[in-house]
């Protein structure tokens, strides 16, 4: 294991678990739930942020309440894979407002993409007008998200 890795103790793990789930909990409450003082909780949170373990907060919407009822994941394969075409593809796809996540992957696809849409016909519009118009797309596969569960990960 590299030497610059951060060693977490049980308190850090408990704090991370709480904040990963709900980053809006007041420090007092974190302290109470992790059985430590508010000031210690504050110091620990600052340390976790400073060493980069705890990143930016992320706002999670109830998508339906804003009229977005469909989330689709696309696997995309590109036809040309020179570095210029990759950069061009990435620049174009991140600019699409309905595209939430773009990951370059190794496997049967080159990219994984998460897309939100108001409904299926709105998704069709995004797919036809935006995605299929992207440079270099040779093939794609769409899967409609039905449910999603976030797990705490290996900090327990």
């Amino acid at each position, binding site marked *: 294991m*590299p030497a610059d*890795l*951060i060693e*977490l103790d049980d308190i850090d793990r408990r704090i*991370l678990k709480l*904040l*990963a*789930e*709900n*980053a*809006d909990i007041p420090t007092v409450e974190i302290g109470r739930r992790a059985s430590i003082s508010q000031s210690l909780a504050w110091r620990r949170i600052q340390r976790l942020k400073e*060493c*980069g*373990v*705890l*990143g*930016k*907060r*992320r*706002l*999670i*919407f*109830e*998508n339906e*309440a*804003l009229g*977005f009822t469909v989330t689709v*994941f696309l*696997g995309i394969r590109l036809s040309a894979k020179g570095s210029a075409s990759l950069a061009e593809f*990435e620049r174009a*796809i*991140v600019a699409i*407002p*309905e*595209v*939430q*996540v*773009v*990951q*370059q*992957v*190794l*496997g*049967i*696809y080159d990219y*994984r993409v998460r897309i*939100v849409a108001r409904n299926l016909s709105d998704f069709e519009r995004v797919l036809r007008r935006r995605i299929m118009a992207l440079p270099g797309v040779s093939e794609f*596969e769409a*899967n*409609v*998200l*039905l449910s*999603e*569960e*976030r*797990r*705490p*990960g*290996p*900090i327990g």
Partner: protein
Amino acid sequence: MTKLDAMDFRLLRQLQADPDLKCAELAQKSGMSPATCWRRLENMKRDGPISRFEGSIDWTSLGYEIEVSLRIKLDKANPKVFDEFFYEVRKIPEVTEIQTFLGRVDVRLTLLARNSKHYRELYRDRILALPFVSDIEPLMLISTVKDSRCLPI
């Protein structure tokens, strides 16, 4: 849920651009008083559309170098397939996401591993041991180009 007005949308747009904004900064950017801003935020947290704020964990800084997306097809002949599969998957701490789909893929897991040896062990001992799996396609993450939950509002 009460109907959202233009001011609410202004707040939501500012907030999704930078969810770390403090209420005072947010109020200033959206052109309203801190009290109004706070009240509107509380309403939207209580009645929607704000579900929650998640903290993000940088797993690389904790020594998890590998992230693999496992696209899984299940043998759906048995009605208990999903329940039993989920029950077993939740026991694997390195799994950070479980998603179900309509399409060619039934379930997708995000799996973290410290290194390729660790990944091999997890894959062989935990993933292949999951019940009702008929096919697995792994996609290994090379880089994350964009990662948000922003909506085009």
